[in-house]
């Protein structure tokens, strides 16, 4: 947080790459930010030099533009989700000591608009700060919490610019105000790539059309979002080089579907633990990870792993994080992730969260495991298991299925076919009692299949 003279932050990092002035850094369907626009943005940001500023933007493009203006200029940035109620925003800001709010929304009192900030003195004269980033988590229940990240922890995983990375076109499909979004943003902007940001309200089909037209080469998304993207006809035309999956379990069905659709792309799935504040990447295109990574002495992306009673423990690299109340840590620094893992044929596989098991007549059923098996059915595009209360069994499973759009389906036949398939592949307690064929399955703001209140 110490101030130094000169241009730091995201903009400083980009300027250090020495890109042509007309290079497009960020593109939305109707607007762009070029290298030549950075100077104006820095002048605007210099007005708030050293302040603590909350950002609340409806359009992700405008949020990224504000981050370019303010990161490295201000002491702290708080990224507020636009859909939070006004009083929750105020409480979060007050608790974290935010002095200003910058927004693109018309409905907020006392807010600043980026482009209406008065011109400051020479941008290059303003101090540079190691801006702290405060992200808000969308707790499924109760008030969202605020998690502070040192700048270093946000930018730790960014890989340096490589030959050709200036031609990369990254899609921003996560909310840039969430941790996964900050990772895409940092990786694209600090390697001279172009960040493609869809407008709010575009349908998945429109987004994929636009990304194909723009020649998108890199996409990072949750498996739930990938399943949606693959349903769009234009997905075939995406010239993808890098496919990244994270935030949920990447199963064999989605990995195989992506491999078949994009044979030339590199496919990486990321495991990240909120509890441990870190994770690792798997690059061999198979679900889970090699079981030898669990052996004592093995180090994966700087972390050490261990399996105890079927639950993954992870020892993060570097210094230990601050201890939150719910974090369980042993004397060696291993943290209990709460993710269940089993080993089969030398492969460690994720089964799901400890808290997403259902008790069906005394038998524990892991919902993610059931969903993984159903996803492997050729007619299934997306699926979700929810709990249905049962007086006799305690709980039964309800399965919702979105059929693949490229095949014709008779709903009753399809339901029967999937029921037979479940019977062949699942033990009795794990078979869905009811099957619904639906047009869509809601995905949360974080891009994950909604589970809130369902289990």
């Amino acid at each position: 947080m110490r101030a130094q003279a000169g241009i730091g932050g995201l903009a400083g990092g980009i300027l250090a790459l020495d890109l042509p002035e007309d290079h497009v850094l960020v593109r939305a369907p109707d607007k762009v930010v070029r290298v030549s626009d950075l100077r104006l943005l820095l002048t605007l940001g210099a007005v708030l030099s050293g302040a603590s500023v909350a950002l609340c933007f409806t359009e992700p493009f405008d949020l990224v533009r504000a981050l370019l203006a303010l990161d490295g200029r201000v002491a702290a940035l708080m990224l507020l989700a636009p859909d939070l109620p006004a009083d929750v925003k105020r409480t979060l800001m007050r608790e974290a000591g935010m002095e200003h709010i910058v927004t693109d929304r018309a409905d907020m009192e006392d807010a600043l608009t980026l482009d209406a900030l008065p011109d400051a003195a020479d941008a290059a004269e303003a101090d540079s700060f190691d801006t702290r980033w405060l992200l808000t988590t969308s707790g499924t229940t109760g008030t969202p919490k605020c998690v502070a990240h040192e700048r270093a922890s946000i930018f730790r995983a960014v890989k340096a610019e490589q030959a050709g990375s200036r031609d990369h076109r990254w899609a921003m499909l996560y909310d840039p105000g969430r941790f996964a979004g900050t990772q895409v943003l940092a990786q694209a902007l600090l390697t001279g790539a172009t960040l493609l940001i869809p407008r709010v309200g575009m349908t998945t089909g429109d987004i994929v059309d636009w990304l194909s037209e723009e020649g998108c080469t890199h996409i990072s998304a949750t498996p739930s979002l990938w399943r949606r993207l693959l349903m769009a006809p234009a997905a075939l035309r995406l010239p993808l080089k890098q496919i990244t999956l994270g935030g949920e379990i990447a199963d064999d069905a989605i990995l195989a579907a992506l491999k078949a659709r994009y044979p030339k792309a590199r496919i990486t799935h990321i495991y990240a633990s909120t509890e441990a504040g870190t994770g690792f990447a798997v690059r061999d295109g198979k679900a889970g990870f090699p079981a030898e990574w669990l052996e004592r002495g093995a180090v994966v992306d700087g972390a050490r792993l261990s399996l105890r009673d079927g639950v993954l423990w992870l020892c993060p690299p570097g210094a230990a994080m601050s201890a939150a109340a719910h974090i369980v840590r042993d004397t060696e620094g291993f943290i209990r992730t709460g993710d269940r893992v089993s080993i089969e044929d030398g492969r460690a596989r994720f089964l799901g969260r400890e808290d997403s098991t259902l008790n069906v007549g005394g038998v524990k059923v892991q919902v993610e495991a059931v969903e993984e098996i159903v996803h492997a059915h050729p007619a299934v595009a997306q699926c979700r298991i929810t709990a249905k209360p049962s007086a006799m069994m305690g709980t039964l499973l309800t399965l919702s299925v979105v059929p693949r759009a490229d095949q014709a389906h008779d709903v009753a036949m399809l339901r029967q076919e999937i029921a037979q398939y479940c019977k062949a592949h699942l033990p009795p307690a794990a078979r869905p009692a009811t099957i619904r064929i639906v047009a869509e399955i809601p995905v949360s703001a974080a891009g994950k299949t909604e589970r809130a209140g369902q289990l």
Partner: protein
Amino acid sequence: MNQMLSQFPQADQPLILSEDELRARITSMFNEMWREDREDEPPVLENDTVLLETGFDSMAFAVLVARLDDELGFDPFTMVEEPVYPQTFAEFVTFYAQCAPKPV
């Protein structure tokens, strides 16, 4: 897609059915489930048929109740405070009829 879905409405609003209609729906769902699992013909459900002697176990009955909930829009077993254990088919149907939504 939406057109296809509308041919198979999934109950959002409970249906108003007479006891005879309920009996027919329950029988038909029982038969449908039976044929999913077995080759032989389903047993004829009489008033005094003992449920657990039909060949359905408690899991199968739980599934029957769940599917009826999807079709009819209510699950009588989750509506009552004291647990109810109907033994014969007639008791089962009567229990459904007692808990069924009534016309306003």
